[in-house]
């Protein structure tokens, strides 16, 4: 199962280090990453693989929420399937886990 992590907020030092640190602790592998500055806001999108994840999705979400408070940025994690479903015509029959 794959998920998209989206980080948005004012640019600062160590954003990738902090977020990837949490992912590493949970044994979540980063497959792809892109980032940009939009309207003065740092915006990062990561594709991650939850195949080897330690703990539940909920606990990963909780850790990312704690991280978001620590670095003062918004962090969301969502299953990749919703993005594929909404933006690819040939989506179908994929399951979440």
């Amino acid at each position, binding site marked *: 199962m794959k998920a*998209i992590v*989206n980080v948005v907020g004012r640019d600062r030092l160590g954003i990738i280090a902090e977020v990837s640190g949490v992912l590493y602790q949970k044994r979540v592998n980063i*497959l*792809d990453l*892109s980032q*940009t500055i939009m309207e003065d806001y740092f*915006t990062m*999108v990561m*594709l991650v693989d939850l195949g080897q994840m330690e703990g539940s*999705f*909920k606990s990963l*979400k909780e850790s990312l929420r704690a991280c978001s408070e620590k670095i003062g940025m918004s962090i*969301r*994690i*969502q*299953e*990749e*399937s*919703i*993005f*594929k*479903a*909404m*933006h*690819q*015509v040939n*989506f179908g029959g994929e*399951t*979440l886990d």
Partner: protein
Amino acid sequence: MTDMKSILETIRMIEKEKLDIRTVTMGISLLDCAHEDGARARERIYKKITTLARDLVAVADQIEEELGIPIINKRIAVTPISLIAGATGEEDYTAFAKTLDDAAEAVGVNFIGGFSALVEKGISNSDRILMKSLPGALASTQRVCASVNVGTTKAGINMDAVKTMGQTILDVAAMTRDQESIGCAKLVVFANAVGDNPFMAGAYHGVGEADAVINVGVSGPGVIKAALERVRDQPIDVVARVIKETAFKITRAGQLVGEEVSRRLGVPFGIMDLSLAPTPEIGDSVARILEEIGLEACGTHGTTAALALLNDAVKKGGIMASNHVGGLSGAFIPVSEDEGMIAAVQGGALTFDKLEAMTCVCSVGLDMIAIPGDTRAATIAAMIADEAAIGVINNKTTAVRVIPAWGKTTGDMVHFGGLLGYAPVMKVNSFGSEAFIRRGGRIPAPVHSFKN
């Protein structure tokens, strides 16, 4: 990886434009619960609902967490109770409504639909008892929703049932007068009702359905409105295309949720209802979409055309995005549940008659309209007859959900709370329809229904 622009678009739709899954509704057949002993029948009903829907809310909440899209309502629709309770010989079905209410509370859903009767051609003894039980049932329950189907394109319109429902709506208003006549917000009179509609208050589980099924209704007026803001002053073809593309994305989110709920509960996925369902919140209004298309206020000349375009484009976009389409499918125009509609009524742009015209081209009908508390029974029956005629002649579902607000008059406000919203009491035609309604009988099926 899906490109960044698309990912950010989805996030924006959910975060800022109020994209959500409006309802995941489990349809449950109660046909095997019928029993000549009413208490036994109700015991079976309670057990069946609480067994099949036990995990509905938990599973939907889990999927909401994983996909990051809100699933606003989890609901249940059951076989029309008139078909089940008739075996008992009881003279009042309020106890059945209470059982449905208890079962809904036990599994944590906010509404349960199916306290219903299908009387388009004739009224059975059981149907008569159910209709007679409506005021008491709606006054003594919180979550139960009721509906009565009074006409179909194949059968015509049962004017005896229409007449009965005119009076029944007044009785429900009176019985629930200490709560702004809210019982009427949970009672829909249909023509061409469908058995796979996931939306309340008109949901029931059709007799041609399986034991259990999952039906999903999406939402997203805010998403369509925001998309149209980006194509201002462009030709109407562009408007249609943008609505289609946006409806595709919205519907796909619903399709994914429906597939997941279905898989995890082991219950077949029935249909997607390709809907635009507003809420009273700012930024979640169908009326505001029509205004974005170019109308100064919803209800002015051009509103019917803009709504026809919107409704059609939503379906065209949604059909490709889903495996099976059903339910009501189209834009809803419930006045009290749409901030823009409420404002249009208050501003004098939107009238009762214009709403009737709009129902010719959109999903369902005269919906969540507060009318003066002293409106006559024959006038309400005549509203039902008009609306049923629109549905029967045009091969579409239509409905009436009006609230004759007890003690209120034109211009007063009625507050229902929550998703049911608030509404200004609208002016209705003061000329009578008594002699027309008194005739009773049936309006014959239209000529174009003879297709065999």
